[in-house]
């Protein structure tokens, strides 16, 4: 067969069709879920007209309110803790001389990513069950500690990446001009680091907010977060209320991810300068 003049060497038969199929498949179930959150009827499949009633129902549901507040408290504290801790660690790990224990430290920080969530969940269940009976404390502290730990690698990665691409001559210049090491950090290092810190904090927040498995095993009675509440609803009674809650959570995550995308693109553009 003769090659046509416009033969595209990059083309592979059927690849574009499969790609199109993938993009449709990735979004179709989510879009349908969102559409049915606006259904006026109780059914999850037959469309009975547009209505916001399920959002209103969810808004007035006291259990949902409590779970939302709990989710936000846990995610906020875990984000602050993990980001602080990750920035301190990244300042050591992100640059400077290699030192003894450096690779062990990397392994420790990345451990929550390597170990399957279910394994971390049951190990925390075991340890926290013992601490609970010994101390009698059964507050949100366990969930906050667990979330802080598994958020550390997410907060760590962007900060470290930022540090590695950072121009060190500015800090040397500050030191040459007799800035103290704190002044150098406060006035030079931290402002340069800030986009990475922001990106890391956003990733940590989304990760904490979305967590199901570890929360499900660590939580005490009556400590449902929004995802574990939804997990419970999926087994019991499914109404479009679950769709409505899922949609709100979805929109929130998407906004954060898109914001992250632009923050890191900004980072990238600046690094190119």
């Amino acid at each position, binding site marked *: 067969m003769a090659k046509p003049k416009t033969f595209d*060497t*990059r083309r*592979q*038969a*059927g*690849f*574009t069709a*499969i*790609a199109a*199929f*993938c*993009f449709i*498949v*990735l*979004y179709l*179930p*989510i879009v*349908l*879920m969102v559409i*049915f959150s606006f259904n006026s009827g109780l*059914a*999850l*499949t*037959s469309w009975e007209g547009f209505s916001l009633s399920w959002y209103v129902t969810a808004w007035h549901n006291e259990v949902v309110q409590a779970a939302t507040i709990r989710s936000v408290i846990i995610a906020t504290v875990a984000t602050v803790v993990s980001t602080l*801790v*990750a920035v*301190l*660690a990244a*300042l*050591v790990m992100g640059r400077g001389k290699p030192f003894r224990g450096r690779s062990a430290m990397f392994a*420790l920080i990345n451990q*929550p990513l*390597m*170990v*399957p*969530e*279910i*394994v*971390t*969940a*049951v*190990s*925390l269940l*075991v340890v926290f*069950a013992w601490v609970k009976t010994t101390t009698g404390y059964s507050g949100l502290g366990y969930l906050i500690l667990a979330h802080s*730990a598994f958020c*550390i690698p997410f907060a760590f990665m962007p900060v470290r990446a930022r540090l590695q691409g950072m121009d060190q001559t500015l800090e040397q210049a500050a030191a040459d001009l007799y800035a103290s090491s704190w002044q150098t950090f406060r006035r030079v290092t931290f402002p340069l680091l800030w986009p990475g810190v922001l990106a890391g904090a956003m990733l940590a927040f989304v990760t904490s907010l*979305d967590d*199901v*498995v570890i929360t499900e095993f660590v939580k005490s009675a009556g400590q449902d977060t929004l995802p574990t509440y*939804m997990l419970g609803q*999926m087994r019991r009674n499914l109404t479009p209320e679950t769709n409505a809650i*899922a949609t709100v*959570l*979805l929109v929130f*995550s*998407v906004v954060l*991810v*898109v914001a992250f*995308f632009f923050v890191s693109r900004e980072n990238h553009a600046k690094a190119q300068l």
Partner: protein
Amino acid sequence: MAATQPNTDLVAANRRETRNRWLLLLPAIVILLAAAIGPLIVVVLYSFLVAGDYGGVVWHFSWDGWLGVFTTSDPFDGTLSLADAHISILWRSVKLSALTTLFCLILGFPTAYFIATRPVSQRDGWMLLITIPFWTNLLIRTFAIMGLIRNEGLVNGFLEWLGIIDQPIQMMFTDFAILLGMVYVYLPLMVLPLYASMERLNFSLIEAAYDLYATPFRVLRRVIIPAVKPGVVAGSILVFVPSLGAYVIPRILGGGTQLMLGNLIELQFGQARNWPLGAALSLTLLVMVTAALIVYVRASANEGE
């Protein structure tokens, strides 16, 4: 004396530097010890203890937890036999994870290639479309799949409306449902590393192959696939590892009947009240995942040579 003075200064400075370094690392070490690595060590310990009657453990050394992974002991005479239930769950976990990896590769490879062959200015946008589902709550995506395949779901509703079927097709609580859910949820994990490899693909090699009268299929097999092999390996591991440890997807889409390893572990800490067995099963999963990661590290190290 004067010559040694700067030397001791240097030693002191070094010592101070080391101390500051570990002071900065200390908060991370404390939190990770308390809520990540420490509990894991406790699980190792628990896997060698005796199960308590109402959950928990009795502090007495025993191999029962580990023996229970593959065997069951007869309640009357104590003879061991293979635990068919556990083996079939382990097999289902490995089989479904391998199939998930395969289907993600079949779908993800052309998608990554499609994105890598777009104009540079468009690629970030296409990748954002892959990244958004990746950062969307796993529970929500599983729920979205459930909305499609339930007996009262959209697929069955649509087929009934068309008049193709009278009775809904039972898709929930089957291996198919779990497979579908896992492919859907983990597909972005395949596309991300594949794209990273393909972005660096040297397209003049492809042109050279066509100049030498290669067919498009031969170009794919002999030029493109070998060049992006690191991405294929990375993507496959990134999909296989979380599939093996999946818990939420089989719990929702597989129901109480089609268990995977993650659900079997939960069962031991819940209804079955056999914590040592649950601990041993958790470590079995961890070993499988670590083995997969080691294969990956070896493979990528070989690529680097």
